């Protein structure tokens, strides 16, 4: 008895010691990686707030001190980006809405209604997720520039709209392009959600004689509202962040219809090199909408990513 009681405190102590040692190590690693993932961002923001002389003199990640602090870079970057923010939203919001609606319909037709060969059709959607867009770029620019010059057709119409110029008509083919190439990934996201829904509701409605359209409008749509949120946030971020299609269809960072991502790589560079204060300000402003969306809806975003991998 006495032996066991005298021994047990030692055991507990060594356990605690071991435990603490490992805990400290674990949390040190967690913090180290927090630094790893945040330093580039933090450095960018700090640089955005510094004067050029402060950028040259101080450590890049140190906060601006005293006279080194300035908002002129941010103001300048904002004035350069205002129009392109509007362009990005004019393109990304309708494209995402159409995308989400079409993808939900496609996933419904491919999941909740069963017919032969739907796996094969779905496989075609799935391959569309992984296709590198370079493989369609030449046809894409051919199509919108020579075969079906929609932007040129719509130019007079856009010129008549207040606040917009004729050049903004190029946003229309860009939006359609984003809708078409966004359908596969959004369909995959919706399909995995619909497959997880219990089948009994749809079966019951079928037995009651509800049509396919009625089932979609009365049952599936209300049930998939949370998924609409997930896919909308995910796809909006993707389209807002996208560069290659804008680059192909709008060309040139000084075009009136250029979205944010097209302008950013050109801001603040001159023959003397890059003004990093301005460049970092612009990068921060360009990233701000996605950062806000991400922080507010982190769980939805992560969910979208998890389903993407199947």
């Amino acid at each position: 008895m006495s032996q066991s009681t005298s021994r047990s405190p030692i055991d507990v102590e060594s356990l605690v010691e071991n435990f603490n040692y490992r805990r400290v190590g674990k949390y040190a690693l967690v913090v180290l990686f927090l630094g790893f993932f945040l330093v580039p961002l933090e450095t960018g923001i700090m640089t955005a707030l510094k004067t050029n002389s402060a950028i040259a003199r101080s450590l890049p990640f140190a906060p601006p001190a005293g006279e080194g602090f300035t908002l002129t870079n941010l103001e300048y970057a904002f004035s350069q980006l205002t129009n392109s923010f509007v362009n990005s939203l004019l393109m990304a919001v309708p494209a995402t809405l159409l995308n989400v609606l079409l993808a939900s319909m496609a996933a419904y037709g491919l999941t909740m209604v069963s017919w032969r060969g739907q796996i094969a059709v779905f496989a075609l959607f799935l391959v569309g997720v992984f296709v590198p867009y370079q493989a369609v770029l030449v046809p894409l620019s051919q199509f919108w520039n020579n075969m079906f010059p929609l932007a040129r057709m719509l130019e007079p119409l856009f010129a008549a709209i207040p606040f917009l110029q004729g050049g903004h008509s190029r946003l229309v083919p860009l939006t359609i392009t984003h809708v078409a190439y966004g359908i596969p990934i959004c369909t995959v996201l919706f399909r995995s959600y619909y497959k997880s829904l219990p089948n009994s509701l749809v079966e019951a409605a079928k037995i009651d004689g509800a049509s396919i359209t009625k089932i979609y409008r009365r049952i599936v749509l209300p049930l998939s509202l949370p998924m609409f949120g997930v896919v909308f946030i995910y796809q909006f971020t993707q389209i807002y962040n996208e560069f290659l299609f804008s680059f192909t269809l709008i060309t040139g960072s000084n075009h009136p219809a250029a979205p944010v991502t097209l302008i950013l790589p050109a801001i603040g560079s001159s023959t003397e090199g890059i003004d990093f204060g301005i460049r970092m300000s612009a990068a921060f402003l360009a990233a701000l909408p996605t950062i806000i969306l991400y922080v507010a809806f982190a769980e939805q975003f992560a969910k979208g990513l998890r389903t993407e991998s199947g």
Partner: protein
Amino acid sequence: MATRDTTEPTNQSGVSTDEVVDWKTKLRYFLNSDFVRSSPYWGIPFILMGIAVYGGIGYNIVISFTDYSGLQPPSFSGLDLEMYRTALASGAFREAAVNNFVLLVSFTVISLILGLFLAILLDHGIRYKNKVQTIYLLPMALSFVVTAQLWLWMFNPDSGVLTVIVTTFGFDPIDWLGNPRLALPAVIFALVWQFSGYAMVVYLAGLQSIPDDQFEAAKVDGASTIRTYLRIIVPQLKESSVSAAVVLMVFALKAFTFLYSLVGQYRPPNGTDILATLMVRQAFKFGKWAYGAAIATMLLLLALSVIAPYLAYQYRQGSL
């Protein structure tokens, strides 16, 4: 038997009407079938997507067989494989293909290892796990265009963060992106920074599906934590690894935007030219549309060689 024999002759006269009815009923059944009824739902997105993706790929392949370049419209007489021969014989193409391969493999492997490590780290009862996970994943929400600017500044040889780190250890500042031998590893490093969080999320989901009693059993058997993970847990994460690897590889194939945004011009830093940048440069800068299309087709084949086995695997597993 007998009844059927007797009814046969009477039916024979009505065969033609029967067939008509049959054909009509069949059509009615077909039109009422779930396939047709649901076709507006999946059909419209399918046509739009099909034209864009498969029409685009098909037309791209056709263009790659022509000599289309400059402002003249393409002529479709005399299709041949000349562009492919030119590409395979060109040093720039081979260099880009090698870089592409190095980028693809090392980025994917490093991201997977780091992602697995982070997932295991966070799976160990860390407090504020969700908040930490959110931060680890944050770079993923940023555009390639933005992260390229951030890393351009990080790698800046005059006063970037990495230069500060290198000089505090007493080394000379290194021009990471200006040195052709270091540029590709530097780009891979930045891409790992952006996407290892993704691998982490996939692995975390996989880890959560493994029942806790396996850890308990291994602990009772006296296995160390590292052994438990290597021998018992990691083999069960095979599916997570495969799906994360495929998505990461696709990200790597899309690295064009990152490379373009680093310099803001068609030519990426020396030593980082990949097939995607080569293709866009040939097509959109020099107007060699057919040549660009041929490179793009080979890039597509590379992507398909990754995706096709994955889809076949998923199909066999029944998880498609």
